[in-house]
């Protein structure tokens, strides 16, 4: 599997699936094990309750040719707990991710680290003698840049949340329901 091209903004095989599921125990396991069973890799996955507390929204970033993607979404749609699957066009959606990192920041380079955080409009959320813990929320590509710069100072620990996404509002309806076209309407198990 190739990784997503993080800097071109034209990631070729980068697909964002927004999957609305019933908020019940075991649903995430069903979804993720389906990917595993069919031999497909999940690049990033984020899940939390959606607008209706009975539902959860899972944002899955996968890196696939479109033919296998079609098969995986059809299989996904067969899961009883899956209500709706939409594919978000990366160019027409809002993507966000949160990064938290502890970075080496001895006194002699502390101000440098601080200025990097400032440039990215990040936050310093904890301070110790030799390290800083910083956070940054934003587009995943921006987080990639930030991470690369921090790496130069030495990242001690890093956690990213995986991306969440919704369609942009300014260009009409963006949720393209991919499991609901003429040939795949309805669902069966």
């Amino acid at each position, binding site marked *: 599997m190739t990784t997503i091209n993080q800097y071109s903004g034209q990631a070729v095989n980068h697909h964002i699936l927004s999957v609305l*599921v*019933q908020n019940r*125990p*075991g649903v995430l*396991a*069903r979804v993720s*094990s*389906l990917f595993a*069973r069919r031999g497909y890799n999940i690049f990033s996955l984020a899940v939390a309750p959606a607008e209706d507390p009975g539902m959860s929204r899972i944002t899955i970033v996968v890196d696939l040719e479109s*033919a296998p993607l*079609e*098969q995986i979404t*059809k*299989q996904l*749609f*067969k*899961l*009883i*707990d*899956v*209500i*709706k699957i939409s594919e978000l066009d990366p160019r027409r959606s809002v993507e966000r991710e949160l990064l938290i990192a502890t970075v080496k920041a001895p006194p002699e380079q502390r101000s440098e680290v601080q200025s990097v955080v400032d440039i990215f409009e990040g936050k310093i959320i904890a301070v110790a003698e030799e390290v800083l813990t910083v956070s940054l929320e934003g587009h995943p590509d921006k987080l990639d840049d930030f991470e690369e710069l921090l790496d130069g100072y030495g990242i001690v620990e890093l956690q990213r949340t995986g991306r969440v996404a919704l369609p942009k509002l300014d260009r009409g309806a963006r949720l393209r329901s991919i*499991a609901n076209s*003429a*040939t*795949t*309407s*309805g*669902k*069966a*198990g």
Partner: protein
Amino acid sequence: MCFFGLVPGCSNTFRNHFSPTLSTRTSTRKPAKARPMADQADHVQSQTPDRITGAQALIRALEMEGVETMFGYPGGCILPAYDPLLDSSIRHVLVRHEQGAGHMAEGYAHVSGKPGVAMVTSGPAATNLVTPLMDAYMDSVPMVAITGQVATNAIGSDAFQECDTVGITRSCTKHNELVMTSQDLPMAVRQAFHIATTGRPGPTLIDVPKDVLVNEMDWYWPTDEEVLASLPGYRPNVKGHPRMIKEAAKLILSSERPVIYAGGGILKARAAEALARLVELTGIHVVTTLMARGVFPDDHELNLGMPGMHGNATAVTAMQKSDLLVALGSRFDDRITGKVDAFAEEAKIIHVDIDPAEQGKVRRPDVPIVGDARQVIEEIIIEIEKLLETGTVQADTSAWKSKVSGWQEQFPMMYEPSEPGQALKPQFCIEQLRDLAPERTILTSGVGQHQMYASQYWKFNEPYTWVNSGGLGTMGFSIPAAIGAKAAFPDATVWAIDGDGCFQMTAQELVTATLEKLPIKVALLNNRYLGMVRQWQEMFYDERYSSVFLDSAEVPDFVMMAESMGCVGIRVESPEEVGPAIEKANSINDRPVVVEFRTEASEGVFPMVPAGASNDDLILHPSQQDRKDQLK
């Protein structure tokens, strides 16, 4: 009017349960017995809540779902559910191994169309059920499994006989649920039956902790509307897209070399009659897959028989050379297509399947139609009739037909009869069984050479008379499946075709057959080998026979083994004994019969498309191989 206000509108319970809105299933099924209904009616009248245990609720719910027979094996965690069974209208068949319970449920479902029900305890019982669940999943068999689970407060503690049943069965069920409170049981049962029997049928599983069975709940019966509302993500699409149906009709009429590729989905959709009308209307040849044998009569001149790895030369080649494949309820399994890239290269594809995920999974269809096979076929017929009325003329298929009949003449199914004194030919045994079988005999089979001989040499003229494990290829399937079929149709003659390898996997269920008075008949083709594996080693591994010789000439003594389990055991070694032995077996109806046929070890199944090869590279019977050029 509702008990404790739990279920709005539950006074409509009975009316809704048998209304046709929820599924086709509800319209064809009857309540098992009046007892639970009467109980319920009384309580509705008195308006007092019906406090019962979860176990009682579970059994009552099964009765309400119309379950008449179930297969199972008790144990610690499921024990509470076995108590109300004593007072139930449901017949419980006590098996000897949980795998047997699962396959019996499958056999029952295959022949009756009703969901098969298996109930077992937690831990090892649940894991023993995994094979039948996967088998049912692969072959789209409606089945509901109920497993016991350790008490809710012990879940996750590695308690005695605990396993993560829902986790283990996640990828081999259509849906599964761990029920955490007694109050949820009726809904869980309704959902399980609804999901198992609608859309593409399949197995569902309910995992029930012991305390959930013991605790009390207020009985209620969810309405269709409540069941549907509880499953917002499940809406099987049964009606095909009208534009696609029109296109399909046009394509069928305009094709010069069309073949209908009929799969097991036609049986699941009860569409055999619709298929017959489509064939009569269009005069198109039909191939019936291993799963679909019997869906269209073998006697019919337009039935080419079985395609695939061991299909007959004409069926394989007709598909391969066709210009249109009308795939109905079939999924382009690799055993049918051979090498996918070289499969029916000139054919356009109309693919009718209720499961959208089957569309384009293997071969991209030209006309994909998602819907119920019966409805879609009926709609295609209407469209074809319209086209014909408005002057469309069907393309001339006569050249194709004469070519096909030429292949049929040149390449009949054949084997060389045994010389006097030699071992029996398995094909001969199947032919004799076929010719002496009472009408509507149900045939089940294990997996291997005997399965292929059975599907090749039997004449299937009725749907729902052939039960086998197609997708998963489960050895040991035939005896329990036959018992399940016999439980569904006690008056039918049920023959299980088995091999000596398969027999030794599940033969203990013959004890079940004897004691439960389900007298099946077993035709055991004993060639002392794992025959199919032996054939592959012969053909592809330079005759290096690694671990395939079972040496079952004397050990076990199958006749003694059968008799020890309460069956009649008969051994047959020469051709002239075959007919009389079968007649004797057919005349015994008070206990199971095992007829052991000592067959030729070196016999192979032909024709054959080697795994991964193109269907063009069919290996014919050695006596036909030199004429292979004519299959062009």
